């Protein structure tokens, strides 16, 4: 008969799960107790028998190969899952780069346009004949352009303003004819350029206030025409003249 004290602990002892103190004590007990030793032997035999009998089924090598292949095959999916953020990041960077390039391109186009207009403005002021039609009368200047440019425009009434119309001339930008009107405000000269939008091509200009080469520039589009106001007058003066022109258009 197995000792009651140790009966419940025999399995844990044989499984190597008994605390060190109890393991030692039970080991000593087994040396002196034939019944517990016989029971222990019986259980060990059963453990061994189950260990041997339990290792019964062996998989087909082809099945193993199939599982291994599946793991390897799924790794590209795994790979793509984790490379997706990389690709997404790369795409974002590319798009950001493209936007930056586009913005830079637009900025370059605008700078080029301001530069061209400044050249025209300076060339006009430097000329001994700055205007082809000398007149302060808008009803003289506007008809003068008839047949010279492929569009028409309205000029504002300047009677109650500080601006004086000095005259006008045909100007060219991007090989297209347009109107250049010269205004004066105090000692400053202001050029107003009017071109067809379609004639500007890559020389784009949005409605904006900008400055370049020490000149203030205002631009807007209306009814297929692009207006540019450029001069060394103050920004406020350019804004006032722009408002008058917009109102007249």
């Amino acid at each position, binding site marked *: *008969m*197995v000792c009651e004290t140790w009966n*419940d602990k025999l*399995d*844990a002892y044989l*499984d190597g*799960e008994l605390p060190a103190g109890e393991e030692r004590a039970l080991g000593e007990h087994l040396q002196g107790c034939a019944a517990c030793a*016989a*029971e222990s*032997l*019986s*259980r060990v*035999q*059963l*453990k061994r*028998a*189950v*260990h*041997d*009998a*339990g*290792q*019964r*089924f*062996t*998989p087909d090598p082809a*099945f*193993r190969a*199939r*599982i*291994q292949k*599946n*793991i*390897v095959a*799924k*790794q590209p999916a*795994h*790979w793509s899952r*984790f*490379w997706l*953020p*990389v690709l997404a*990041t*790369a795409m974002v*960077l590319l798009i950001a780069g493209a936007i930056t390039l586009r913005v830079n391109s637009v900025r370059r186009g605008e700078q080029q346009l301001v530069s061209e207009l400044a050249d025209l403005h300076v060339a006009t002021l430097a000329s001994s004949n700055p205007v082809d039609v000398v007149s302060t009368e808008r009803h003289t200047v506007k008809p003068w352009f008839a047949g010279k440019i492929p569009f028409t425009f309205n000029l504002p009434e300047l009677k109650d303003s500080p601006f004086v119309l000095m005259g006008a001339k045909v100007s060219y930008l991007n090989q297209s004819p347009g109107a250049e009107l010269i205004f004066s405000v105090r000692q400053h000269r202001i050029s107003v350029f009017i071109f067809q939008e379609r004639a500007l091509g890559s020389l784009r200009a949005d409605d904006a206030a900008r400055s370049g080469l020490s000149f203030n520039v205002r631009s807007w589009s209306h009814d297929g025409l692009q207006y540019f106001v450029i001069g060394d007058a103050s920004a406020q003066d350019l804004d006032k003249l722009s408002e008058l022109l917009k109102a007249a258009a």
Partner: protein
Amino acid sequence: MTAAWFTLVCVSEESLLSGSFEQLAMPHFERLYNFACWLTHDRQEAEDLVQETYAKALKGFSSFQQGTNFRAWIYKILRNAFLTSRTGLKVTATVPLDLEGDEENLPKIRETPESILLQRSDRELVQKALEQLPVAYREVLLLCEVEEMSYQEISATLSIPMGTVMSRLSRARRALRTSVQTAQVQKMQGA
């Protein structure tokens, strides 16, 4: 730049993980298959179970905590897959998984240690006895004796407390001994 660097770090870590999955999982393949066969009693079903286990383990490998017990983790996946399989559901519907307190259904053991001194030829007899055990007893015995898992590993694999592991093992052994004894007696009488 920071986002790209972070992503690259994540990628290299995950690549490392996916690479190590095969190294960690494949050494258990034969034993998992053996365990699956014992659970299902059907080789084809065992193959399906193992295949499902590896697919689930690979998919959830990122959630596996490195440094913890991979063997217990993958055995747990296999066991859960079995419990939700057609055979598993059928087995658990007819035989409760939790057999604790089911003393009445356990056969009484005759205290005659000599009667279960086993011979090599008794291997088949033990196998049959194992087959006939309720799945809850069979799995705990196999994990302990065949897989040589510690009580703690068995506890993690079966999601049961350590005390339950010990009591279930004890009952499983008693049930097996009785079954083997009965078979031995029948064998002797037949001879």
